[in-house]
Protein backbone atom coordinates (compact mmCIF):
# COMPACT_ATOMS: atom_id res chain seq x y z
CA UNK A 1 0.00 0.00 0.00
CA UNK A 2 1.46 3.41 -0.95
CA UNK A 3 -0.19 6.78 -0.37
CA UNK A 4 0.19 10.56 -0.35
CA UNK A 5 2.14 13.17 1.62
CA UNK A 6 2.15 13.52 5.39
CA UNK A 7 2.59 16.84 7.19
CA UNK A 8 4.18 16.52 10.61
CA UNK A 9 4.37 19.44 13.01
CA UNK A 10 7.49 19.43 15.19
CA UNK A 11 7.01 21.58 18.28
CA UNK A 12 10.19 23.23 19.52
CA UNK A 13 9.89 24.12 23.19
CA UNK A 14 11.56 27.55 23.20
CA UNK A 15 11.08 30.76 21.20
CA UNK A 16 14.25 31.22 19.14
CA UNK A 17 15.82 32.94 16.16
CA UNK A 18 15.76 31.41 12.69
CA UNK A 19 19.45 30.46 13.00
CA UNK A 20 18.80 28.67 16.25
CA UNK A 21 15.74 26.94 14.82
CA UNK A 22 17.86 25.75 11.90
CA UNK A 23 20.05 23.85 14.38
CA UNK A 24 16.96 22.01 15.58
CA UNK A 25 15.92 21.33 11.98
CA UNK A 26 19.29 19.66 11.31
CA UNK A 27 17.89 16.62 13.12
CA UNK A 28 15.75 15.86 10.09
CA UNK A 29 18.88 15.32 7.95
CA UNK A 30 20.31 12.71 10.29
CA UNK A 31 18.06 9.94 9.03
CA UNK A 32 16.62 8.99 5.74
CA UNK A 33 12.96 10.01 6.11
CA UNK A 34 10.29 8.60 3.82
CA UNK A 35 9.80 11.04 0.94
CA UNK A 36 6.16 11.56 1.75
CA UNK A 37 6.97 13.08 5.16
CA UNK A 38 7.14 16.87 5.37
CA UNK A 39 8.37 18.28 8.68
CA UNK A 40 7.32 21.76 9.79
CA UNK A 41 9.11 23.17 12.84
CA UNK A 42 7.25 25.60 15.07
CA UNK A 43 8.47 27.18 18.29
CA UNK A 44 6.38 27.86 21.35
CA UNK A 45 5.51 31.51 21.96
CA UNK A 46 6.92 31.56 25.49
CA UNK A 47 8.81 29.11 27.66
CA UNK A 48 10.48 28.48 30.99
CA UNK A 49 14.20 29.32 30.86
CA UNK A 50 15.18 25.67 31.18
CA UNK A 51 13.50 22.43 32.26
CA UNK A 52 14.84 21.91 35.77
CA UNK A 53 11.99 22.43 38.23
CA UNK A 54 8.34 21.57 38.72
CA UNK A 55 7.42 25.15 37.82
CA UNK A 56 9.33 24.78 34.54
CA UNK A 57 7.56 21.50 33.79
CA UNK A 58 4.13 23.09 34.17
CA UNK A 59 5.07 26.02 31.95
CA UNK A 60 6.56 23.63 29.40
CA UNK A 61 3.34 21.60 29.31
CA UNK A 62 1.08 24.59 28.79
CA UNK A 63 3.28 26.36 26.20
CA UNK A 64 3.55 23.20 24.10
CA UNK A 65 -0.17 22.48 24.43
CA UNK A 66 -0.89 25.94 23.08
CA UNK A 67 1.58 25.62 20.22
CA UNK A 68 0.09 22.35 18.97
CA UNK A 69 -3.58 22.29 19.95
CA UNK A 70 -4.85 23.41 16.52
CA UNK A 71 -2.51 21.12 14.58
CA UNK A 72 -5.26 18.91 13.13
CA UNK A 73 -7.36 21.91 12.04
CA UNK A 74 -4.24 23.37 10.44
CA UNK A 75 -3.90 20.30 8.23
CA UNK A 76 -1.20 18.41 10.06
CA UNK A 77 -1.30 14.62 10.15
CA UNK A 78 0.82 14.19 13.29
CA UNK A 79 2.69 16.15 15.96
CA UNK A 80 6.17 15.44 17.34
CA UNK A 81 7.42 17.17 20.46
CA UNK A 82 11.06 18.27 20.20
CA UNK A 83 11.89 17.55 23.83
CA UNK A 84 12.68 14.32 25.56
CA UNK A 85 10.55 15.41 28.50
CA UNK A 86 7.46 14.73 26.34
CA UNK A 87 6.17 17.99 27.78
CA UNK A 88 2.68 18.80 26.56
CA UNK A 89 2.24 15.39 24.94
CA UNK A 90 -0.43 14.09 27.34
CA UNK A 91 -2.48 17.30 27.15
CA UNK A 92 -2.15 17.44 23.35
CA UNK A 93 -3.24 13.82 23.10
CA UNK A 94 -6.35 14.69 25.10
CA UNK A 95 -7.41 17.29 22.51
CA UNK A 96 -6.09 15.82 19.26
CA UNK A 97 -7.06 12.63 17.43
CA UNK A 98 -3.95 12.72 15.22
CA UNK A 99 -0.86 10.96 16.62
CA UNK A 100 1.20 13.00 19.09
CA UNK A 101 4.64 11.49 19.47
CA UNK A 102 6.68 12.06 22.62
CA UNK A 103 10.32 11.24 21.87
CA UNK A 104 11.02 10.24 25.48
CA UNK A 105 8.58 7.38 25.77
CA UNK A 106 9.14 6.38 22.15
CA UNK A 107 12.90 6.15 22.72
CA UNK A 108 12.67 4.20 25.98
CA UNK A 109 10.24 1.65 24.52
CA UNK A 110 12.32 1.29 21.35
CA UNK A 111 15.41 0.73 23.50
CA UNK A 112 13.61 -2.18 25.15
CA UNK A 113 13.00 -3.71 21.72
CA UNK A 114 16.78 -3.83 21.20
CA UNK A 115 18.17 -4.76 24.61
CA UNK A 116 17.37 -5.58 28.24
CA UNK A 117 18.25 -2.33 29.97
CA UNK A 118 19.04 1.14 28.70
CA UNK A 119 21.15 3.94 30.12
CA UNK A 120 20.37 7.63 29.75
CA UNK A 121 23.28 9.87 28.74
CA UNK A 122 22.65 13.46 29.72
CA UNK A 123 24.35 16.84 29.62
CA UNK A 124 23.32 17.96 33.02
CA UNK A 125 22.31 16.46 36.34
CA UNK A 126 19.50 18.97 36.65
CA UNK A 127 17.73 17.23 33.76
CA UNK A 128 17.50 13.93 35.62
CA UNK A 129 14.08 14.82 37.02
CA UNK A 130 12.69 14.85 33.49
CA UNK A 131 13.76 11.29 32.79
CA UNK A 132 12.69 10.05 36.18
CA UNK A 133 9.24 11.54 35.64
CA UNK A 134 8.70 9.66 32.38
CA UNK A 135 10.25 6.42 33.69
CA UNK A 136 7.93 6.56 36.70
CA UNK A 137 4.90 7.34 34.57
CA UNK A 138 5.68 4.41 32.25
CA UNK A 139 6.53 2.23 35.26
CA UNK A 140 9.81 1.11 33.69
CA UNK A 141 12.29 2.44 36.25
CA UNK A 142 13.61 -1.10 36.73
CA UNK A 143 14.62 -1.23 33.04
CA UNK A 144 16.88 1.80 33.34
CA UNK A 145 20.46 0.73 34.15
CA UNK A 146 21.57 4.26 35.00
CA UNK A 147 21.42 7.96 34.26
CA UNK A 148 24.70 9.89 33.98
CA UNK A 149 25.63 13.38 32.89
CA UNK A 150 28.76 15.28 31.87
CA UNK A 151 27.72 18.08 34.21
CA UNK A 152 27.76 20.79 31.55
CA UNK A 153 24.97 23.34 31.55
CA UNK A 154 23.46 22.92 28.08
CA UNK A 155 22.76 25.68 25.58
CA UNK A 156 19.28 24.80 24.33
CA UNK A 157 19.53 27.29 21.47
CA UNK A 158 23.09 27.02 20.11
CA UNK A 159 23.49 23.37 21.13
CA UNK A 160 27.06 22.01 20.71
CA UNK A 161 28.30 24.50 18.14
CA UNK A 162 31.85 25.68 18.96
CA UNK A 163 32.12 23.36 21.97
CA UNK A 164 32.37 20.01 20.20
CA UNK A 165 36.02 19.33 21.15
CA UNK A 166 35.22 19.72 24.81
CA UNK A 167 31.80 18.07 24.99
CA UNK A 168 32.01 15.06 22.68
CA UNK A 169 34.93 13.23 24.40
CA UNK A 170 33.30 13.80 27.78
CA UNK A 171 30.02 12.35 26.53
CA UNK A 172 31.91 9.36 25.19
CA UNK A 173 33.66 8.72 28.52
CA UNK A 174 30.39 9.01 30.40
CA UNK A 175 28.65 6.65 27.99
CA UNK A 176 31.43 4.14 28.67
CA UNK A 177 30.59 4.29 32.36
CA UNK A 178 26.92 3.61 31.58
CA UNK A 179 28.00 0.50 29.68
CA UNK A 180 30.86 -0.76 31.83
CA UNK A 181 29.74 0.24 35.32
CA UNK A 182 25.96 0.34 35.07
CA UNK A 183 25.29 -2.47 32.59
CA UNK A 184 23.44 -0.51 29.90
CA UNK A 185 22.80 -2.52 26.71
CA UNK A 186 21.41 0.47 24.82
CA UNK A 187 22.05 4.19 25.34
CA UNK A 188 19.34 6.82 25.07
CA UNK A 189 20.49 10.38 24.43
CA UNK A 190 18.99 12.51 27.18
CA UNK A 191 17.86 15.36 24.96
CA UNK A 192 16.85 16.05 21.38
CA UNK A 193 19.41 18.88 21.61
CA UNK A 194 22.18 16.26 21.81
CA UNK A 195 21.61 15.13 18.25
CA UNK A 196 24.92 16.63 17.14
CA UNK A 197 26.69 14.04 19.34
CA UNK A 198 24.88 11.01 17.96
CA UNK A 199 27.12 10.11 15.05
CA UNK A 200 30.31 10.69 17.06
CA UNK A 201 29.11 8.34 19.80
CA UNK A 202 27.65 5.66 17.53
CA UNK A 203 30.95 5.43 15.64
CA UNK A 204 32.87 4.84 18.87
CA UNK A 205 30.57 2.69 20.99
CA UNK A 206 29.57 -0.91 20.41
CA UNK A 207 25.93 -0.73 21.50
CA UNK A 208 22.93 1.02 19.92
CA UNK A 209 22.68 4.77 20.62
CA UNK A 210 19.19 6.17 20.21
CA UNK A 211 18.75 9.67 18.81
CA UNK A 212 15.30 10.68 20.03
CA UNK A 213 14.33 13.40 17.53
CA UNK A 214 14.85 11.48 14.28
CA UNK A 215 13.38 8.37 15.90
CA UNK A 216 10.23 10.34 16.73
CA UNK A 217 9.79 11.46 13.09
CA UNK A 218 10.08 7.90 11.82
CA UNK A 219 7.70 6.70 14.52
CA UNK A 220 5.16 9.34 13.49
CA UNK A 221 5.25 8.04 9.93
CA UNK A 222 4.96 4.42 11.08
CA UNK A 223 2.04 5.24 13.40
CA UNK A 224 0.19 6.95 10.55
CA UNK A 225 0.97 4.16 8.10
CA UNK A 226 -0.50 1.66 10.55
CA UNK A 227 -3.62 3.77 11.01
CA UNK A 228 -2.90 4.07 14.71
CA UNK A 229 -3.06 6.86 17.21
CA UNK A 230 -3.03 7.15 21.01
CA UNK A 231 -5.82 5.50 22.98
CA UNK A 232 -8.72 7.70 23.99
CA UNK A 233 -9.09 5.48 27.06
CA UNK A 234 -5.64 6.55 28.24
CA UNK A 235 -6.06 10.18 27.16
CA UNK A 236 -9.72 11.13 27.69
CA UNK A 237 -10.88 14.37 26.10
CA UNK A 238 -11.92 17.33 28.28
CA UNK A 239 -15.65 17.92 28.83
CA UNK A 240 -15.13 21.57 27.92
CA UNK A 241 -12.02 22.39 25.87
CA UNK A 242 -10.70 25.88 26.70
CA UNK A 243 -8.61 26.63 23.66
CA UNK A 244 -9.36 30.37 23.56
CA UNK A 245 -8.42 30.70 27.18
CA UNK A 246 -5.17 28.84 26.61
CA UNK A 247 -4.34 31.02 23.59
CA UNK A 248 -4.94 34.18 25.60
CA UNK A 249 -2.79 32.87 28.43
CA UNK A 250 0.04 32.46 25.94
CA UNK A 251 -0.57 35.91 24.42
CA UNK A 252 0.01 37.26 27.90
CA UNK A 253 3.01 35.03 28.54
CA UNK A 254 4.62 36.07 25.25
CA UNK A 255 4.15 39.76 26.11
CA UNK A 256 5.87 39.27 29.46
CA UNK A 257 8.65 37.15 27.96
CA UNK A 258 9.46 39.84 25.37
CA UNK A 259 9.41 42.73 27.81
Amino acid sequence: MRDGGLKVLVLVPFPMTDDQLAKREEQSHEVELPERVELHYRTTRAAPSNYVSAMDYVLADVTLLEAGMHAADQGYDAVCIDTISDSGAAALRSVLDIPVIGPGRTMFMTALMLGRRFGVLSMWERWFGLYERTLRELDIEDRCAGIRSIDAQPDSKNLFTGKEDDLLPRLHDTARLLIDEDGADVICLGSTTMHQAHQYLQERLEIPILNPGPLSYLTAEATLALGLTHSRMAYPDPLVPKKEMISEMLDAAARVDRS
Partner: protein
Amino acid sequence: MRKVAVIVPFALGEADLARRRAQTEAVSLSADIDYDFVPVKAGPSSFQSPHDWLLLDVAVLEAGLDAEDIGYSAVVVDTASDSGVDALRSVLDIPVVGPGRASMLFALTLGKRFGVLAQWEPALARVEKSLTEWGLWKHCAGVEHFDTEPDFEKLIGDKSEAVIPKMEAACRRLIEAGTDVICLGSTTMHEAHEVLAGRLPVPIINPGPLSYKLVEILLATGLSHSRRTYPKPLVPKPEMIHAMLESAARRSQS
Protein backbone atom coordinates in the same frame (compact mmCIF):
# COMPACT_ATOMS: atom_id res chain seq x y z
CA MET B 1 16.64 -2.23 -3.33
CA ARG B 2 17.03 -3.79 0.11
CA LYS B 3 15.61 -7.19 0.93
CA VAL B 4 14.01 -8.30 4.18
CA ALA B 5 13.40 -11.97 5.03
CA VAL B 6 10.08 -12.66 6.74
CA ILE B 7 10.36 -16.10 8.30
CA VAL B 8 7.06 -17.95 8.28
CA PRO B 9 6.86 -20.44 11.13
CA PHE B 10 5.20 -23.27 9.20
CA ALA B 11 6.40 -25.20 6.15
CA LEU B 12 3.73 -23.70 3.90
CA GLY B 13 3.17 -23.97 0.17
CA GLU B 14 2.88 -20.96 -2.15
CA ALA B 15 -0.92 -20.47 -1.79
CA ASP B 16 -0.77 -20.42 2.00
CA LEU B 17 2.31 -18.17 1.93
CA ALA B 18 0.32 -15.65 -0.11
CA ARG B 19 -2.14 -15.31 2.77
CA ARG B 20 0.81 -14.41 5.00
CA ARG B 21 2.26 -12.05 2.40
CA ALA B 22 -1.08 -10.16 2.31
CA GLN B 23 0.03 -8.50 5.56
CA THR B 24 2.35 -6.24 3.56
CA GLU B 25 -0.71 -4.81 1.78
CA ALA B 26 -2.20 -3.60 5.07
CA VAL B 27 0.27 -0.76 5.53
CA SER B 28 2.12 1.87 3.54
CA LEU B 29 5.67 0.56 3.12
CA SER B 30 8.87 1.98 1.69
CA ALA B 31 9.22 1.34 -2.03
CA ASP B 32 12.92 0.58 -1.47
CA ILE B 33 12.41 -2.63 0.51
CA ASP B 34 11.30 -6.02 -0.76
CA TYR B 35 9.87 -8.60 1.63
CA ASP B 36 10.59 -12.26 0.90
CA PHE B 37 8.38 -14.69 2.81
CA VAL B 38 10.56 -17.68 3.67
CA PRO B 39 8.92 -20.72 5.31
CA VAL B 40 10.78 -22.90 7.81
CA LYS B 41 11.78 -26.36 6.55
CA ALA B 42 9.92 -28.23 9.29
CA GLY B 43 8.36 -27.51 12.63
CA PRO B 44 5.71 -28.42 15.16
CA SER B 45 2.14 -29.17 14.09
CA SER B 46 0.56 -27.21 16.91
CA PHE B 47 1.76 -24.34 19.04
CA GLN B 48 0.64 -25.04 22.55
CA SER B 49 3.34 -26.90 24.45
CA PRO B 50 7.00 -26.34 25.36
CA HIS B 51 7.82 -29.11 22.86
CA ASP B 52 6.21 -27.06 20.08
CA TRP B 53 7.83 -23.79 21.19
CA LEU B 54 11.28 -25.34 21.25
CA LEU B 55 10.92 -26.93 17.81
CA LEU B 56 9.84 -23.58 16.42
CA ASP B 57 12.81 -21.80 17.99
CA VAL B 58 15.16 -24.21 16.23
CA ALA B 59 13.27 -24.09 12.93
CA VAL B 60 13.21 -20.28 12.80
CA LEU B 61 16.87 -20.07 13.79
CA GLU B 62 17.75 -22.38 10.93
CA ALA B 63 15.62 -20.52 8.40
CA GLY B 64 17.25 -17.18 9.21
CA LEU B 65 20.79 -18.28 10.03
CA ASP B 66 22.30 -17.31 6.67
CA ALA B 67 20.14 -14.24 6.05
CA GLU B 68 23.00 -11.79 6.34
CA ASP B 69 25.30 -13.79 4.04
CA ILE B 70 22.55 -14.17 1.45
CA GLY B 71 22.22 -10.37 1.34
CA TYR B 72 19.17 -9.61 3.47
CA SER B 73 19.23 -6.29 5.33
CA ALA B 74 16.92 -7.45 8.13
CA VAL B 75 14.87 -10.40 9.35
CA VAL B 76 11.31 -10.43 10.65
CA VAL B 77 9.71 -13.42 12.28
CA ASP B 78 6.07 -13.90 11.27
CA THR B 79 4.86 -15.02 14.68
CA ALA B 80 3.91 -12.92 17.69
CA SER B 81 5.59 -15.52 19.91
CA ASP B 82 8.89 -14.08 18.60
CA SER B 83 10.10 -17.68 18.28
CA GLY B 84 13.75 -17.89 17.28
CA VAL B 85 14.33 -14.14 17.61
CA ASP B 86 16.76 -14.28 20.52
CA ALA B 87 18.81 -17.04 18.90
CA LEU B 88 18.89 -15.23 15.54
CA ARG B 89 19.96 -12.01 17.23
CA SER B 90 22.86 -13.87 18.79
CA VAL B 91 24.23 -14.83 15.38
CA LEU B 92 23.18 -11.95 13.11
CA ASP B 93 24.28 -8.31 13.15
CA ILE B 94 21.40 -7.15 10.90
CA PRO B 95 18.18 -6.21 12.73
CA VAL B 96 15.94 -9.11 13.73
CA VAL B 97 12.43 -8.02 14.65
CA GLY B 98 9.88 -10.04 16.59
CA PRO B 99 6.34 -8.69 16.27
CA GLY B 100 5.22 -9.82 19.74
CA ARG B 101 7.47 -7.84 22.04
CA ALA B 102 7.43 -4.93 19.59
CA SER B 103 3.59 -4.82 19.68
CA MET B 104 3.44 -4.66 23.43
CA LEU B 105 6.14 -2.01 23.78
CA PHE B 106 4.68 0.03 20.95
CA ALA B 107 1.25 -0.24 22.61
CA LEU B 108 2.75 1.40 25.69
CA THR B 109 3.63 4.48 23.64
CA LEU B 110 -0.09 4.86 22.81
CA GLY B 111 -1.74 4.01 26.12
CA LYS B 112 -1.09 3.01 29.70
CA ARG B 113 -1.96 -0.68 29.61
CA PHE B 114 -2.33 -3.15 26.78
CA GLY B 115 -4.44 -6.28 26.52
CA VAL B 116 -3.65 -9.32 24.40
CA LEU B 117 -6.18 -11.10 22.20
CA ALA B 118 -5.23 -14.79 22.10
CA GLN B 119 -6.65 -17.40 19.78
CA TRP B 120 -7.92 -20.07 22.15
CA GLU B 121 -7.31 -21.41 25.63
CA PRO B 122 -4.27 -23.54 24.69
CA ALA B 123 -2.55 -20.39 23.36
CA LEU B 124 -2.64 -18.64 26.72
CA ALA B 125 0.43 -20.42 28.10
CA ARG B 126 2.66 -19.04 25.34
CA VAL B 127 1.37 -15.48 25.79
CA GLU B 128 1.98 -15.77 29.53
CA LYS B 129 5.51 -17.07 28.92
CA SER B 130 6.22 -14.06 26.70
CA LEU B 131 4.86 -11.58 29.25
CA THR B 132 7.12 -13.12 31.89
CA GLU B 133 10.22 -13.21 29.66
CA TRP B 134 9.76 -9.63 28.53
CA GLY B 135 8.93 -8.36 32.03
CA LEU B 136 5.64 -6.87 30.85
CA TRP B 137 3.06 -8.37 33.21
CA LYS B 138 2.56 -5.16 35.16
CA HIS B 139 1.69 -3.32 31.94
CA CYS B 140 -0.84 -5.91 30.80
CA ALA B 141 -4.51 -5.37 31.68
CA GLY B 142 -5.52 -8.85 30.57
CA VAL B 143 -5.32 -11.70 28.09
CA GLU B 144 -8.55 -12.96 26.52
CA HIS B 145 -9.15 -15.62 23.90
CA PHE B 146 -11.94 -16.16 21.40
CA ASP B 147 -12.12 -19.93 21.70
CA THR B 148 -11.40 -20.81 18.08
CA GLU B 149 -8.85 -23.37 17.00
CA PRO B 150 -6.18 -21.66 14.89
CA ASP B 151 -5.70 -22.56 11.27
CA PHE B 152 -2.06 -21.71 10.58
CA GLU B 153 -2.45 -22.38 6.86
CA LYS B 154 -5.81 -20.89 5.87
CA LEU B 155 -5.88 -18.29 8.70
CA ILE B 156 -9.36 -16.82 9.20
CA GLY B 157 -10.24 -17.08 5.50
CA ASP B 158 -13.92 -17.82 4.86
CA LYS B 159 -14.69 -18.26 8.56
CA SER B 160 -14.70 -14.53 9.30
CA GLU B 161 -18.47 -14.24 9.73
CA ALA B 162 -18.37 -16.76 12.55
CA VAL B 163 -15.06 -15.73 14.05
CA ILE B 164 -15.03 -11.92 14.03
CA PRO B 165 -17.98 -11.49 16.45
CA LYS B 166 -16.17 -13.77 18.90
CA MET B 167 -12.98 -11.75 18.50
CA GLU B 168 -14.89 -8.54 19.06
CA ALA B 169 -16.52 -9.92 22.22
CA ALA B 170 -13.12 -10.93 23.60
CA CYS B 171 -11.74 -7.45 22.79
CA ARG B 172 -14.65 -5.87 24.67
CA ARG B 173 -13.81 -8.01 27.69
CA LEU B 174 -10.25 -6.68 27.49
CA ILE B 175 -11.54 -3.09 27.42
CA GLU B 176 -13.74 -3.78 30.44
CA ALA B 177 -10.63 -5.04 32.22
CA GLY B 178 -8.92 -1.68 31.69
CA THR B 179 -7.16 -2.17 28.37
CA ASP B 180 -6.22 1.04 26.50
CA VAL B 181 -4.60 -0.66 23.52
CA ILE B 182 -5.21 -4.17 22.16
CA CYS B 183 -2.41 -6.30 20.73
CA LEU B 184 -3.51 -9.02 18.34
CA GLY B 185 -1.82 -12.07 19.83
CA SER B 186 -0.93 -13.66 16.51
CA THR B 187 0.13 -12.46 13.07
CA THR B 188 -2.41 -14.96 11.70
CA MET B 189 -5.22 -12.65 12.91
CA HIS B 190 -4.26 -9.92 10.45
CA GLU B 191 -7.30 -10.50 8.23
CA ALA B 192 -9.56 -9.35 11.09
CA HIS B 193 -7.60 -6.21 11.97
CA GLU B 194 -9.40 -3.71 9.79
CA VAL B 195 -12.89 -4.81 10.87
CA LEU B 196 -11.99 -4.87 14.57
CA ALA B 197 -10.24 -1.48 14.37
CA GLY B 198 -13.42 -0.05 12.83
CA ARG B 199 -15.65 -1.39 15.59
CA LEU B 200 -13.66 -0.86 18.76
CA PRO B 201 -12.85 2.39 20.59
CA VAL B 202 -9.18 1.60 21.27
CA PRO B 203 -6.14 1.22 19.00
CA ILE B 204 -5.64 -2.34 17.75
CA ILE B 205 -2.06 -3.30 16.97
CA ASN B 206 -1.58 -5.57 13.96
CA PRO B 207 1.75 -7.20 14.80
CA GLY B 208 2.95 -8.19 11.32
CA PRO B 209 2.60 -4.77 9.64
CA LEU B 210 4.04 -3.11 12.78
CA SER B 211 7.11 -5.31 12.47
CA TYR B 212 7.68 -4.18 8.86
CA LYS B 213 7.48 -0.52 9.90
CA LEU B 214 9.98 -1.20 12.68
CA VAL B 215 12.34 -2.71 10.16
CA GLU B 216 12.10 0.52 8.16
CA ILE B 217 12.86 2.57 11.29
CA LEU B 218 15.84 0.40 12.24
CA LEU B 219 17.26 0.49 8.72
CA ALA B 220 16.78 4.27 8.46
CA THR B 221 18.47 4.91 11.80
CA GLY B 222 21.19 2.28 11.37
CA LEU B 223 20.13 0.60 14.63
CA SER B 224 20.15 -3.06 15.50
CA HIS B 225 19.84 -5.16 18.66
CA SER B 226 22.44 -4.76 21.38
CA ARG B 227 25.30 -7.26 21.34
CA ARG B 228 25.43 -6.97 25.11
CA THR B 229 21.92 -8.40 25.37
CA TYR B 230 22.46 -10.99 22.65
CA PRO B 231 26.08 -12.20 22.91
CA LYS B 232 27.46 -14.31 20.07
CA PRO B 233 28.13 -18.04 20.62
CA LEU B 234 31.81 -18.93 21.11
CA VAL B 235 31.47 -21.53 18.37
CA PRO B 236 28.56 -21.08 15.94
CA LYS B 237 27.24 -24.39 14.62
CA PRO B 238 25.50 -23.52 11.36
CA GLU B 239 26.25 -26.84 9.63
CA MET B 240 24.84 -28.78 12.56
CA ILE B 241 21.69 -26.67 12.68
CA HIS B 242 21.11 -26.99 8.93
CA ALA B 243 21.66 -30.76 9.07
CA MET B 244 19.14 -31.06 11.91
CA LEU B 245 16.46 -29.27 9.94
CA GLU B 246 17.18 -31.16 6.74
CA SER B 247 16.61 -34.35 8.69
CA ALA B 248 13.49 -32.93 10.22
CA ALA B 249 12.17 -31.96 6.78
CA ARG B 250 12.82 -35.48 5.44
CA ARG B 251 10.99 -36.96 8.42
CA SER B 252 8.00 -34.61 7.95
CA GLN B 253 7.72 -35.53 4.26
CA SER B 254 7.98 -39.28 4.82
